[in-house]
């Protein structure tokens, strides 16, 4: 069952990955940087792009048996891309084609810059148009072009073998916003802390929860309860931040579990305000501090600490 949606939100995850290429793809990429296209011998066949293993039997191929193929080849199949996206290799209409390079028995997928769909045909001859700035990447060939003659040939050869490939992943998402999430967001904007009390087991959940996981009861507006904006710190950790692309923290920071007053709801991994990391401890009485439409954190109230040996076990 899909929770009813209250609209969508767009988000994008980006991260720079690395790829270790291994002996065969590494040699292939090194070849491209030097305007050479390599295939690998597999019995009586030559495979381009080359693989480390025979795709049919799984047998390891002789990684030294790399042979130069092309540079020209024959289009064995193709499709026209009339409206290229940002992820496509060319910013004008082009063909994505399977190209069997001369001397190879398998086909390489690449772009053909033919100008128009009318210039494309199965069986047509194409040759690579090389980029001037090459890095050992499949895009070192900008595209294939109709004809027998490679374009952009120069004397530049790589100084070092190519062993790694940077890969910048970018994944855009369209996330549906669940009705409870939307209603909770409205409450947060109005500086109200709401919960959802399960009609079956009476547990109280955070206001955006869709279901009680214990009895699979759907939680809806009728189960909404207003919660006090005070609570007790039950458990915590002090995190020494590890740096990674997108990391926003530089100094050690606390994340705390807060048991909300008059309920059984623990809100997990919360920031604290006006409580230095060396003073964070179990039992501190806290009150909610509002940020812009969300909880900014929890601040000590100044009341005496709660002394209860079981408090530390209230992680959830």
């Amino acid at each position, binding site marked *: 069952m899909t929770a009813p949606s209250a609209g969508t939100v767009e988000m994008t995850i980006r991260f720079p990955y690395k790829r*270790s290429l291994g002996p065969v793809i590494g040699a292939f990429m090194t070849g491209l940087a030097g305007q050479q296209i390599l295939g690998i011998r597999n019995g009586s066949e030559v495979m381009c792009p080359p*693989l480390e293993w025979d795709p049919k039997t799984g047998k390891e191929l002789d990684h030294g048996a790399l042979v130069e193929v092309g540079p020209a080849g024959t289009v064995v199949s193709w499709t026209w891309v009339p409206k290229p996206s940002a992820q496509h290799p060319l910013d004008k209409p082009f063909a994505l084609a399977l190209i069997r390079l001369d001397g190879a028995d398998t086909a390489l997928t690449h772009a053909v810059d033919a100008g128009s769909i009318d210039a494309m045909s199965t069986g047509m001859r194409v040759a690579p148009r090389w980029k001037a700035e090459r890095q050992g990447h499949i895009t070192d060939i900008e595209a294939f072009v109709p004809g027998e003659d490679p374009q952009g040939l120069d004397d530049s050869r790589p100084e070092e073998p190519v062993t790694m490939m940077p890969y910048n992943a970018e994944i855009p998402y369209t996330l549906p916003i669940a009705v409870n999430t939307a209603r909770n967001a409205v409450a947060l904007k109005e500086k109200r802390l709401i919960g959802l009390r399960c009609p079956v087991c009476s547990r109280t959940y955070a206001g955006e929860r869709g279901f009680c996981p214990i009895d699979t009861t759907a939680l809806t507006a009728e189960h909404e309860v207003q919660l006090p904006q005070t609570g007790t710190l039950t458990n915590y950790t002090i*995190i020494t931040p590890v740096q990674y692309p997108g990391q926003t923290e530089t100094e050690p920071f606390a994340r705390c579990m807060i048991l909300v007053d008059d309920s059984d709801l623990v809100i997990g991994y919360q920031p604290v305000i006006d409580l230095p990391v060396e003073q964070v401890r179990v039992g501190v009485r806290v009150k909610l501090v509002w940020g812009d439409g969300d909880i900014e954190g929890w601040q000590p109230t100044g009341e005496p600490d709660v002394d209860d040996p079981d408090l530390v076990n209230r992680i959830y």
Partner: protein
Amino acid sequence: MSHQPCAVVGVGQTHHKTRRWDVSLGGLVREAATRALEDAQMDWSDIDAVVLGKAPDLFEGVMKPELYLTDALGAHGKPMFRVHTAGSVGATTGIVAAHHVETGRHKRVLAVAYQKQSEGNAQFALGSGRGGSLGAGGAFAPYMRSYIARSGSPLDIGPMVAVKDRLNALKNPYAHLKLTDISLEKVKESPMMWEPVRYLESCPSSDGACAVVLTDEEGGKAAAAAGRAPAWILGTAVRSEPSTFPGRDPVTPQGAFDCADDLYRQAGITNPREQLDCAELYVPFSWYEPMWLEAHRIAEKGRGWKMVESGETALDGDFPVNMSGGVLSSNPIGASGLLRLAEAALQVRGMAGEHQVDGAKVALGQAYGAAAQYFSMWVVASSLDPFGR
């Protein structure tokens, strides 16, 4: 629940390291799988089906790796399955592979699990790409604080586990961390990363893979007759529970108890502390050793730390735990669960080399994942009926 016997007849793993940039992703899984096939004295063509496990795709940014790795794993024209149960995935992968044999559907199944952490960043991935990521250490730290408080354990127990596992790793040629100068002082002096967990009480980030070849009763008996000891699977169990609900106790999760109870019932184990000879448990942070000893009924509640303190869980102790050096010494996340199962199998086959437990006949392998909410375990033995039932 009746099913056909299943045996582990091949185990292989990579040399786990911070970076295995000498091989491609395919080359990494291939290295482990080749060793497992050599151990089983089989060829790629002998394998009927392949089961692949790894933690989230976001770790390396390779989507659908089960398709990408088909040629590296000789899976062309064969059933290929992908398993995903967070950090426990490696163990679940081995168990899913075992089920294929136990049901009689396939005769010889290859289970492979891997992670190449150096190609991405786990902390980024665990934080869904946002800043201020807790990391696994930050998420689990409150659980460990709760354990320490409720058990009354001395604070040295965590560091003691950290030292023991690193000493064991010195005897394992495949282990990632080789800390020859490890000591209690060194651990206690290391930086506090996720209070109360210190740097040297935490697992490393590793590149690595593990592979296991499973076969039916006929295959297991043939291996035994040829002088290659099989590890017979006495039981497998998998459980999960919701990550958050008011009153959930992640230190002694119900799923952990239920998983162990189901497993012991299948294996005919009524007293795990006595009937198991050793255990390889998923301990990415030191305090998880006493926690799992209790949550899997090997130690009584509140007494897991005493097994550590008394030296019972050391390699030469009465109940060795994490003979391989464990997750604290090598953590290619997706592979870590299968490495636990594989180590249990190596022990009962008598093939664990320098970290062999003398006379080990019955061993437990265990992994957990996500917010301590997925559990995967198996018990293996040197014979199909070790307790003379």
